[in-house]
């Protein structure tokens, strides 16, 4: 009788954990790891990761016992957004890069600390918030992140402050010299009556595999306003898990935008906890996929209090052998009366071998609410295509025009014009190139 030797990745991760020396947060790490050891990585049958074989890919492509790859890249300019007048904070392979970062807002408007430093300088605040809204128990990768995080950011906006310049955070993973496993973490707090705009961009370079396990928590307090934009444009062999939880208090306003363009596998868990009255939350998503990319967006909006409004619009265009996954949960808790919650997910499959799995999940316990959801997936409208062609427009350009029109609707609500036109160009270029 022969036996197949399978890798025990959980054990390898455990060995890596016990051999690591961490400067801060050892208690957090231990308890998070204890939880991770209990659950392990999600298997193929785990409902939440059913379409997204992350564990299999991690087993196949990563060695947990090698040291972190260093990066010798000198310039990060190509990954920045041209002309975006912003605070720039850069992580390279999970480590904060002081030399590439540039803070322009005064500290009276917004305070930036690496998470390690914040453990020393802002220990009380950290103790009150870190791992509290995104708990290690909520997701195996969140647990792994809480145990392993290499570095992170603490962003704190004081009360009644309008942060004039946006915050641009670049997560660059350089796998030129070898595989990269990076785990980073962000905690952001926007105190009462304040405003902040954040743009996060994920890029990678090099031909070796990259695994980026990213966690972030945003606390949006009373009457404050957060604009949050995530751009995932990783190259070839990159695997990413992004756990994002945003917690809203009374009368706060949230706009989130998630754009996924590239990478081997991207899993986004975005949860909005509406824990206040009269909140407004808009979340938009767009995934333009080609090749073998798999992008999985799991979103949750949890209405815990009455009189709030949430609107979710996610759109996808899948070409090549790409796969899209969308799962949108809406919870309306028993006393969250007068909730308005809307959700739509629309998909276009450009090639015959592209697929999409979309699933709305509404759980409503309150009786006086307005909720709606709709999912569509299909091909381009043939009649519209013929109409454009009958005016002399080539089939290729007609398709690109229709796809661009479909996609660009998602960009419309973005306030910052520089950012909007950058994303608009990114989409236009992408659609013309590939279709």
């Amino acid at each position, binding site marked *: 009788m022969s036996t197949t030797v399978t890798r025990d990745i959980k054990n390898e991760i455990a060995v890596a954990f016990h051999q690591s020396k961490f400067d801060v947060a050892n208690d957090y790490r231990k308890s998070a790891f204890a939880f991770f050891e209990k659950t392990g990585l999600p298997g193929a049958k785990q409902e939440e990761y059913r379409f997204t074989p992350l564990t299999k890919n991690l087993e196949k492509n990563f060695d947990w016992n090698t040291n972190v790859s260093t990066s010798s890249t000198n310039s990060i300019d190509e990954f920045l957004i041209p002309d975006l007048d912003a605070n720039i904070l850069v992580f390279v392979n999970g480590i904060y890069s002081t030399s590439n970062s540039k803070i322009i807002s005064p500290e009276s408007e917004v305070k930036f600390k690496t998470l390690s430093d914040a453990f020393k300088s802002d220990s009380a605040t950290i103790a009150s918030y870190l791992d509290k809204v995104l708990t290690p128990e909520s997701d195996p990768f969140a647990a792994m992140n809480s145990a392993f995080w290499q570095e992170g950011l603490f962003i704190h906006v004081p009360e009644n402050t309008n942060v004039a310049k946006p915050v641009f955070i670049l997560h660059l993973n350089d796998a030129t010299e070898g595989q990269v496993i990076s785990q980073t973490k962000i905690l952001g707090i926007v105190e009462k009556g304040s405003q902040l705009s954040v743009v996060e961009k994920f890029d990678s370079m090099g031909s070796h595999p990259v695994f980026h396990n990213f966690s972030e928590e945003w606390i949006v307090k009373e009457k404050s306003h957060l604009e949050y934009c995530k751009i995932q444009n990783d190259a070839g062999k990159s695997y990413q898990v992004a756990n994002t939880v945003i917690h809203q208090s009374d009368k706060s306003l949230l706009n989130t935008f998630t754009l996924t363009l590239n990478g081997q596998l991207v899993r986004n868990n975005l949860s909005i906890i509406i824990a206040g009255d009269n909140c407004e939350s808009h979340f938009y998503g767009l995934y333009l996929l080609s090749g073998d990319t798999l992008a999985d967006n799991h979103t949750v909006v949890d209405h815990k209090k009455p009189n709030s409004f949430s609107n979710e619009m996610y759109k996808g265009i899948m070409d090549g052998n790409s796969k899209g996954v969308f799962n949108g949960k809406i919870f309306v808790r028993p006393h969250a009366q007068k909730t308005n919650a809307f959700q739509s997910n629309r998909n276009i499959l450009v090639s015959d071998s592209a697929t999409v799995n979309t699933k709305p999940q509404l759980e409503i316990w309150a009786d006086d609410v307005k909720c709606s959801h709709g999912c569509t997936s299909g091909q381009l409208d043939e009649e*519209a295509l013929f109409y*454009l*062609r009958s*005016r*002399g*427009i*080539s089939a290729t350009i007609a398709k690109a025009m229709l796809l*661009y029109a479909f996609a660009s*609707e998602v960009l419309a609500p973005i306030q910052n014009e520089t950012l909007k036109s950058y994303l608009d160009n990114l989409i236009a270029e992408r659609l013309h190139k590939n279709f």
Partner: protein
Amino acid sequence: MLTIKNLQAKVADKQILNGIDLKVNAGEVHAIMGPNGSGKSTLASVLAGREDYEVTHGEVDFQGKNLLELEPEDRAREGIFMAFQYPVEIPGVSTINFMKTALNQIREYRGLQALDAVSFLQLMKEKMKLVEIDQSLLSRSLNEGFSGGEKKRNEIFQMAMLEPKLAILDETDSGLDIDALRIVANGVNTLRNKNNATIVVTHYQRLLEYIVPDYVHVLYKGKIVKSGGKELALELEAKGYDWIKNEVAIA
């Protein structure tokens, strides 16, 4: 300009055109009339290159080219324009951008340089007047939320912009009130000249009071069963299509 010989076509498995012969010369206006289901719109669609229709027999020569071999966009570039019976709503694409792309693709095909923004705007303003259409409407998503009349005016605006050699108006009068009808017809008449031709597909004689045809053809069961001058349209109006049906039955 256009010579159709024994054209037969089907959609799905249903034979619709059963041998059409038609010759259209530059400077002429031809009306194609006929009862519902006679194949009028099918003829228009086959000429424009709609892919749902399969040509099973016959030839269509357009200025020396085999029209049936051309892609829809190349037919347009060669100078064919069909005004749709049901113009399509396209969210996210403005009429202005649409027309700019179309015009420049046609110019490129003909070896002309792309129009710059100023010349394009000038041309657009001039053509807008023709169909009394407002620029704000053209900045909006193509036909989205337009009234029936606005959609049809937009069709004629596009026709004015692209200056086709052969325009095919597919039931352009359907759903139009009398004012819109007058505006649309006025646009078409202004665009008429000795170098272009128009095929007006219509069920009713009403439109032909405004766009006066040189020839009228009656289509029935996928064939042209009667041709004549503009007085034929009046006769049809007076006697009804049963007159034609009976004549065909007797023959």
